[in-house]
């Protein structure tokens, strides 16, 4: 007698599963319109004080103090680039980090994981939806920021987008590991909140890292994302970079080569642990 399986597993079926997971997340996003709108406008409430803070320090010749640190007196473009990239960091920490946890809390994680697809595809689907939603939010935020504050981009946007590929892949690879770690915790809100904010600060999303105290600076320099922020600003604004841009891109590619497989392996290890202990339905 021949064993037949109800599901025909193939690359196409995997692709369909990934798209179905991404679609589910997109529907979730649209179902809470007020929440969706606030995700576009909320960053502006953090950016506006920076705009006025800059005005407080501006002399007749503009922000010369800031220019002495960065090589550019356009502090608002500096902040906006940081805010754009910080959007992705927040999306990885909150979106990816909490993706599995939320399913666990709603009680659907165990049943979803019983479906005959590799578990990692859940995270791939969530990554695709998360990247699309974050890109939409970030572009909308930039548009409104341009209307409110105005900003100027002088550099090569195509090169910048190319640099963003290893940066985002590395970030989402890290997200795989983070999502799995969050799954093992009962109360993860504070960890996610503080980690997200601290990483954003240390990588220089809100200020040039050269102003950090000497004992904090090495931590900041040890984070590969710092070089991503720095390289993109260097390309788009012509700011003084920490290292030559090609070195910074090399660091990002190396980071990507470590975090993508590393994140996957950590996820697999925690998945096996959850299967062994039967913790998937607990919260």
């Amino acid at each position, binding site marked *: 007698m021949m064993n037949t399986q109800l599901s025909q597993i193939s690359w196409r079926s995997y692709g369909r599963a990934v798209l179905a997971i991404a679609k589910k997340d997109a529907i979730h996003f649209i179902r809470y319109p007020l929440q969706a709108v606030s995700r576009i406008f909320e960053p502006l*409430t953090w950016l506006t004080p920076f705009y006025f803070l800059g005005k407080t*320090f501006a002399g007749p010749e503009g922000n*010369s103090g800031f220019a002495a640190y960065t090589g550019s007196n356009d*502090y608002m473009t500096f902040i906006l680039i940081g805010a754009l990239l910080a959007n992705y960091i927040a999306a990885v920490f909150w979106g990816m980090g909490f993706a599995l946890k939320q399913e666990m809390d709603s009680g659907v994680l165990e049943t979803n994981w019983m479906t005959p697809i590799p578990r990692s595809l859940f995270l791939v689907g969530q990554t695709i939806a998360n990247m699309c939603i974050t890109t939409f939010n970030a572009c909308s935020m930039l548009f409104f920021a341009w209307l409110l504050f105005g900003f100027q981009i002088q550099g090569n946007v195509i090169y910048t987008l190319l640099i963003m590929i290893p940066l985002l892949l590395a970030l989402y690879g890290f997200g795989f590991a983070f999502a799995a770690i969050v799954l093992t915790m009962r109360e993860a809100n504070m960890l996610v909140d*503080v980690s997200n904010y*601290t990483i954003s*600060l240390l990588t220089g999303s809100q200020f040039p890292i050269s102003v950090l105290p000497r004992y904090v600076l090495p931590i900041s320099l040890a984070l590969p994302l710092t070089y991503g922020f720095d390289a993109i600003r260097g390309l788009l604004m012509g700011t003084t970079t920490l290292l030559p841009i090609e070195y910074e891109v090399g660091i990002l590619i190396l980071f990507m080569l470590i975090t993508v497989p590393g994140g996957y392996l950590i996820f697999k290890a925690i998945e096996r642990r959850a299967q062994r202990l039967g913790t998937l339905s607990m919260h």
Partner: protein
Amino acid sequence: MVQSIVQRSAVSELRALLMIAKKEWFIFLRYPSWIIASLIWPVLFPVGYIFMAKALSGPEGTSLTDFQALTGTTDYRSFIIIGSILWMWMNATLWNSGMQLREEQMRGTLESNWLCPIWRGSLLVGGSLVKVLLSMATLVISVIELRIIYGIQLVGSNPGLLIFILFLAMMIVYGIGMAFASLVLRFKEANALVFLVRGIFMIFCGVSFPIEVLPDWMRSVAMWLPLTYAIRDMRLVLLTDVTLSQLLPDLLILTGFAIFLPLLGYGMFVLAERTARRTGELARY
């Protein structure tokens, strides 16, 4: 003769109020990560603005003169920290008040609690009692932490005046909190409402910058927000040698807000209660 099983008196109302406070205290203790969060955020939150201010002032501090011309001080760290402490207090109150009744609604316990033969305001005030105590404790810890980490002295030369401003600020913050709880009960989406209200305070009240740099129309809006006065007066008391007579006009406005906002908050709560009874929306979420 109809006789109620419950003998309502001032003592029974007080007992109910304290029981609600006790329940909130237990919930707080059961989620201890909040304790860590309240220790970390006062130090972490202003970091972005402080280091940006450092970058804007330049390596030699050359741009500090422009800052001083507008604020009267070169101590940008204390300037930002005073604003951010008050804003964080407001933010925490909005979250706590907004979520207090909403969480009961989500858990499905609000309607049954509402049926208890007690003054309804106890449900809100009882929880707030614990939150007031905790926020006061957080405030004191923040002052100590900021002293140790940033070396900032947040006591000033006139502690009496400082305590009076803090008292007025507390009345204002909790008045807004009560009004906010009623709004959340009606509109449900607490997160979006918190983002909106705290965003308005963040932009208009000069949390990290002097409101003098705002355009005229924004400054007019700021003058209608009580947090603007509370932040400005706290800065004046802590960073300058201001006298009581110089602060009097602002203090009168703050006192007005401190009387009006709790009354408005309670009024809105009563209105929300009546609407909820008519529409039966207490059990909906």
